[in-house]
């Protein structure tokens, strides 16, 4: 697999580390156990297009959000994951 890092360009799979589904958003402080349980443990585990976190640890150390098809491994987009998993920022 080759991933086009938005910062570094196309790179080999070995430079990246997979984390998991980028859909769940970390619940706010004070969230219930049920909400956090859902965030930490339950997964859609989609067969098809899914968004997910990858870390370019062997390169620029950016966390990325990939849209990838789990049936074909085809990657349709790669973007910086900045803030993707954030709860609404408390200003």
């Amino acid at each position: 697999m080759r991933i086009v890092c938005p910062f570094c360009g196309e790179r080999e799979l070995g430079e990246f580390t997979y984390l998991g589904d980028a859909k769940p958003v970390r619940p706010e402080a004070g969230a219930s156990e049920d909400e956090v349980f859902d965030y930490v443990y339950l997964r859609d585990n989609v067969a098809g297009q899914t968004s997910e976190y990858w870390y370019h640890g062997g390169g620029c150390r950016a966390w990325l959000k990939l849209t990838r098809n789990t049936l074909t491994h085809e990657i349709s987009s790669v973007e910086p994951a900045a803030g993707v998993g954030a709860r609404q920022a408390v200003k």
Partner: protein
Amino acid sequence: MKYSIFSLARAALSGHKNWQRTWRDATPKDRYDVVIIGGGGHGLATAWFLASEYGIKNVAVLEKGWIGSGNAGRNTTIIRSNYGLPGNTGFYELSMKLWERMEQDLNYNAMVSQRGVINLYHSDAQRDAYARRGNTMRINGIDAELLDLAAVKKMIPFLNFDNARFPVQGGLLQRRGGTARHDAVVWGYAHAASALGVDIIQNCEVTGFVRDANGKVTGVETSRGKIGAGKVGMAVAGSSSRVAAMAGLRLPIESHVLQAFVSEAIKPLIPGVMTFGAGHFYVSQSDKGGLVFGGDIDGYNSYAQRGNMPVMEDVCEGGMALMPMIGRVRLLRQWGGIMDMSMDGSPIIDRTPVDGLYLNAGWCYGGFKATPGSGFVFAHLLARDTPHKEAARFRLDRFRTGAMIDEKGQGAQPNLH
């Protein structure tokens, strides 16, 4: 037809024209007491135990392709019960005991071969962890031995002991561990279950659940029509999330690809099963002569049933580091199976929040060795509606309560288990 050397000899005289189908080619009935989704080892074993242990014979096993087409037919055939945590230890030993009588139970030679499984250690910390695990096994009445370097050298002298990056220091040995012929396990259960009246229905894909007004599952929609069921059991590891989604369930499971490899057949070289403790590599040699080996999962969610190169290289690197004598042996075939990787690395066998629907899932890369045990306890759950004693911790709600069974201590990240 009873299988034996005598029936073979008789059949030979008639040019083998009289053999019957190994399992009946059933057409679906309108309704069964129990419908098992998934014609893999676990599903077929469940059906056989339902029929043979619990007297429930009005059972169908629905398989979307050909039986054994999932992970049952795509693994490295290892059997062992060398687990270290309560919940796992007793269950896998139950399974091991069932392996030991399988062929006589089924009248089918699954080539269960207890040539031993050794996990090598390369550091004091690893030795201590294996000691802890071995002691758990012994306390549970399971055979386990902690070998020192001299004993390992004597047993498997061909390892790299001289110039290894991470020298072998010893190993945890379970002599009763070994391998079995994976396809034969599937066919054996199909053969025996079919003989007891279980309907095995191939090319029958489940496309939805039939629910009554209370939400209870009362049957399944399939590519071959609607089939009613008293209870529905899912044994579709690799596809658990997809099937559960049809019932509106989200599971603590991700699907990952695990590759396995086989070499060209060579004369006997490796006695039992070995796992490298300083890299991702385990190996055994099949009766046919191929080295069957594997390593880590590819590391990202996948339903693609094929692997990528970095893991193939990583596995071969482990192999060469452990035993550089395999350098000129050729890798013949690589394949990938889809694993139900659970959030703590241990399986789930439980009722689901949906009435009438029962779940057998989350086997990670350890499902094959569990086949008979899984069938046994899942049949118990389906027959009695209470978990079998040895599967009592494989609860679906354990992630919610915090009672995880996390052998590797990696937490809620499936690809690290």
